[in-house]
């Protein structure tokens, strides 16, 4: 890549007001660095990934309202986690976390367990129990 070809496309970096460093060659073929504001192919990939996450969050929300899963799954998606990551944050086995997705099990969870989840999601136990709040 030539220094003058380092892409300067619009990207999500703008919001944080920073540019990333790329390596490129100057006119004499010498390696140097150049800041880049972004490159469209990866901005599209990132935006698609975010869209995908938002779809997952929406889907989880619908299923919570329909009584098919517990709010824990919704908050897990909201925090871009999967079961493995959530399990390691709350310190439970993955099968246990999955069990807590069942609304009937969720309703009977102790305050302590609920608090465990609430702390990880940085919300109150009430917010955990009622996702519309």
């Amino acid at each position: 890549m030539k220094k003058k070809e380092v892409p300067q496309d619009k990207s999500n970096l703008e919001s944080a007001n920073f540019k990333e460093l790329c390596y490129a060659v100057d006119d004499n073929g010498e390696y140097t660095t150049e800041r880049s504001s972004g490159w469209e192919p990866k901005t599209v990939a990132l935006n698609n990934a975010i869209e995908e996450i938002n779809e997952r969050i929406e889907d989880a929300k619908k299923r919570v309202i329909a009584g098919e899963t517990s709010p824990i799954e919704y908050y897990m998606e909201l925090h871009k986690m999967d079961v493995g990551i959530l399990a390691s944050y709350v310190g439970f086995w993955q099968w246990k976390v999955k069990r807590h997705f069942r609304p009937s099990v969720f309703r009977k969870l102790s305050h302590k367990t609920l608090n465990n989840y609430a702390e990880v999601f940085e919300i109150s136990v009430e917010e955990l129990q009622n996702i519309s709040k």
Partner: protein
Amino acid sequence: MEIDFTHHQSAHCENGVVSNLMKHNGFSVSEPMVFGIGSGLLFCYIPLLKVNHAPVITYRAMPGHIFKKFAKRTGVKMKREKFSNPKDAKARLDENLEKNNPVGLQVGVYNLVYFPDEYRFHFNAHNMVVYGKENNRYLISDPVMENVTSLSEKELEKVRFAKGAFAPKGHMYYPIAFPEKLELEKAIVKGIKDTCKAMLAPVSFVGVKGIHKIAALIRKWPKKKGIKTANHYLGQVVRMQEEIGTGGGGFRYIYAAFLQEAGKLLGNEKLIKLSKEMTDIGDLWRDFALEASRIYKNRSAQTDSYNKVADQLDHIADLEKVFFKKLKKAI
């Protein structure tokens, strides 16, 4: 207190931390030099791990390995510590700052408040330097950022004790002893040999073979997983390749910069020529990313277009196979 520490922006966090800590201790070592000596370049498909519900490919060595190999090959002694208790981790950090010793930290990105929201994923192999503490805020030199920043005690604890794959567990590291004179020549040769070995490894998911493997998977994804998932997977491949920190082209440009610098240092014309070749290969990786982005941008791709990008990868793999064989002989 604030330690007199100079922040230099780098492409990749781990190289950047090493390069900045070396410079702080009076040894001028560039980012590409750290990357090359530490054998940072790699291609590896990790079959059992999924991130963001998509397969994981890495274009670089495992977190921490660049630093470890660089230190060993140059004779720099490193101290590394992990903690089970955040309190101990904080105490050891404060102790080092008291002693005017800036340290490297491994952290998770998800709770890194100064990162743009869109970039905050559960990725735990980010690196930064802490170079002081003022009004209970830690002074942070994050190599990928243009400028220095700061984090509160709580914010820093959160990122040091992020959970999930590669959990940092408060991981802290810093050099404790240096050789009298830094002799890079032997270290460069070792670094290059190691990279050639990895890229030519007879393992189906590593190096050149790994690139062929991914090409084969890309051909299968649309039929096996459906267009939506295939595009999600393909997007993740491009993101891993071009993410902040790669310097572009899946680290190929940083590696080319290293070969150029190494060639001059060793007086080896072959390396300088190979640097140009690596740049061309990097351009092909960029072309692949561009072509792939056309697929997931339109969302209604035909199997043909997947085959086309897979062909591009197969071509790159063939070129890299020849390249690393030549590189092995050049030193």
